[in-house]
């Protein structure tokens, strides 16, 4: 007798037990701790914090461990957790000009006040596998430290702005900033919401879009005015106090790209800014974000919108990897009710098609 397939609690429990076993791997090897992930896979942690929209290294490391290194799954875990937290008031805007800089480079000037600080970077390494890392060895010797000069490091975009060559950003107001995580996106989206969306958007998706603008799909002429990474202070002003207090420091990466803009009848030709800001140390993300931010300004600047990266809906509705992975992967769920009607439909139109063809054949005979 035929028995319909049921969900099967036992099957699900077994699958999850198997998953846990796979996650742990060979038990003859020591287990990886979340602290080890946070320390030694730090850039994975940074990416998960950025896409998970939550600055907490320990929780992000835990998410990576639990997700077996699947970073989108880890960002998903962190996002889900984030929504269980009580919300504080919005912070004051972070002052990246006052950043405690660990890395700061400009591609537009050979030198500028504060200088170029290379910092910890893969840039200029030769991508040759270092087989020495296969063996557990001694800790690498730390580089020599020099005294911090304490010289100020003004933002390069501010230096250009002094000469009046940078397009002025509209002044901010005291209205609380819109919040992507509380209200749905309107279209066309204001820049504050676009930047929020890009900041939590998928690094790979933004990378591909940013790259497309460099290859002629969106007509970008970008220069990295400045890329800086380091610690910034987060301040909040509790209403009962009325003055800002420090919550602590977070690591961020900021990228400011300058792009030429032809100007209009009432605007002189000038540079425009593409802006990228990402939690943790994530230069690829901040740079891609800055490229896409500039591309999305096309509409506001009266430029022709021709490329995918310039299309608000195309970019902002597809940049979120938690949304995207959910909908793509939902295709694994049962769809047999819909599919049954699709089957019947196909059989029916095929029968018509065959009848029509036979009719043609008979007429020809």
């Amino acid at each position, binding site marked *: 007798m035929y028995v319909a397939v049921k969900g099967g609690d036992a099957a699900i429990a077994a699958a999850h037990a198997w998953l846990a076993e796979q996650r742990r791997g060979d038990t003859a090897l020591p287990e990886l701790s979340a602290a080890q992930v946070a320390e030694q896979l730090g850039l994975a942690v940074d990416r998960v914090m950025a896409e998970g929209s939550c600055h907490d290294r320990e929780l992000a490391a835990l998410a990576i461990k639990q997700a077996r290194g699947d970073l989108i799954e880890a960002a998903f875990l962190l996002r889900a957790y984030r929504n269980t937290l009580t919300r504080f008031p919005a912070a004051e805007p972070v002052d990246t000009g006052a950043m405690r800089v660990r890395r700061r480079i400009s591609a537009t000037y*050979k030198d*500028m006040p504060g200088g170029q600080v*290379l910092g910890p970077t893969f840039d*200029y390494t*030769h*991508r040759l596998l270092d087989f020495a890392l296969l063996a557990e060895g001694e800790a690498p010797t730390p580089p020599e430290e020099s005294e911090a000069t304490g010289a100020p490091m003004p933002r390069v975009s501010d*230096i250009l702005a*002094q*000469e009046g060559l940078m397009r002025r950003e509209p002044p901010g107001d005291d209205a609380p900033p819109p919040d992507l995580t509380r209200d749905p996106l309107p279209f066309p989206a204001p820049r504050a919401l676009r930047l929020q969306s890009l900041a939590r958007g998928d690094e790979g998706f933004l990378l591909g879009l940013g790259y497309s603008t460099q290859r*002629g799909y969106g007509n970008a002429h970008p220069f990295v005015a400045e890329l800086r990474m380091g610690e910034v202070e987060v301040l909040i002003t509790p209403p009962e106090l009325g003055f800002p207090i420090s919550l602590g420091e977070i690591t961020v990466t900021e990228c400011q790209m300058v792009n030429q803009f032809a100007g209009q009848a009432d605007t002189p030709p000038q540079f425009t800014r593409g802006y990228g800001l990402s939690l943790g140390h994530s230069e690829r993300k901040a740079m891609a974000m800055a490229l896409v931010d500039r591309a999305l300004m096309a509409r506001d600047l009266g430029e022709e919108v021709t490329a995918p990266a310039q299309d608000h809906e195309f970019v902002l509705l597809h940049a979120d990897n938690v949304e995207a992975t959910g909908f793509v992967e939902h295709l694994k769920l049962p769809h047999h009710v819909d599919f049954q009607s699709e089957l019947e439909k196909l059989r029916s139109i095929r029968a018509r098609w065959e009848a029509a063809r036979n009719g043609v054949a008979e007429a020809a005979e």
Partner: protein
Amino acid sequence: MTASAHMQAPDTDPGYNFAYLDEATKRMIRRTLLKAIAIPGHQIPFGAREMPLPYGWGTGGIQVTASILGPDDTLKVIDQGADDTTNAVSIRRFFHRVAGVRTTTRTAEATIIQTRHRIPERPLTEGQVMVFQVPMPEPLFKLEPRLAETRRLHALGDYSLAQVKLYEDIARQGEGGSSYSHPVMVNHRYLMSPSPIPGFDNPKLHMSPALMLFGAGREKKIYAVPPYTSVVSLDFDDHPFRPVRAPHACAACGSTTSYLDEIVTDDRGGRMFVCSDTDHCAENQMARKAAE
């Protein structure tokens, strides 16, 4: 293959073939180069390899240099005109490590000069080879991103898109053209991207005694300008191409003819201008001292 064994310089990394790439790959690239030289300015596709430096950082130039480099060559590597910029240092170290060739910062001494964004100020001579790192080999890509279409336009010699763009720039801004990467007509036939060199350097390509090779790794194209070939910046008779430099003298050597870098000295508008070509600047300073 046996040739490569004795070409191995004594202090190079023994784990890698001379100049990193295997001999068959180098031969494939040299064949592409010959074809490129035979059709000046025409882009030839080639099977670019993954290199241990990232795309966009000079993988095309590095593959070309690796393919033409011999143990007797003297290599100079510049980025933004300077030998001491980080990427130039990195590429020079790479070739020192995998080929053990002699390197120099002197333009006059070099047999091969790999460059990003500049042509040296000192006139090049016969026998010297310039290798350009090229990010986007297609001069029309900002006007037509689809490669199947640009290939057709090159075949027809139809460069009206570029001419109309130039016309529109002149009509709107009063002056034409891009400040860098300004397209050139090579041998009166192919429109070519000179790579993102400033327009100031474009005239140096015209009738140069040196061989100019252009390598684009990510886009998998090679092209070339043979010695003594006509290279003309795209322009109109009544709006001739105008190379631009900052209107100052170099703060270090006093040159009023070299291309200058602008250096921000403070956040109150202070600026200083110095030669972008560090070797040229040093030569000028030495000549000045000798004269004193």
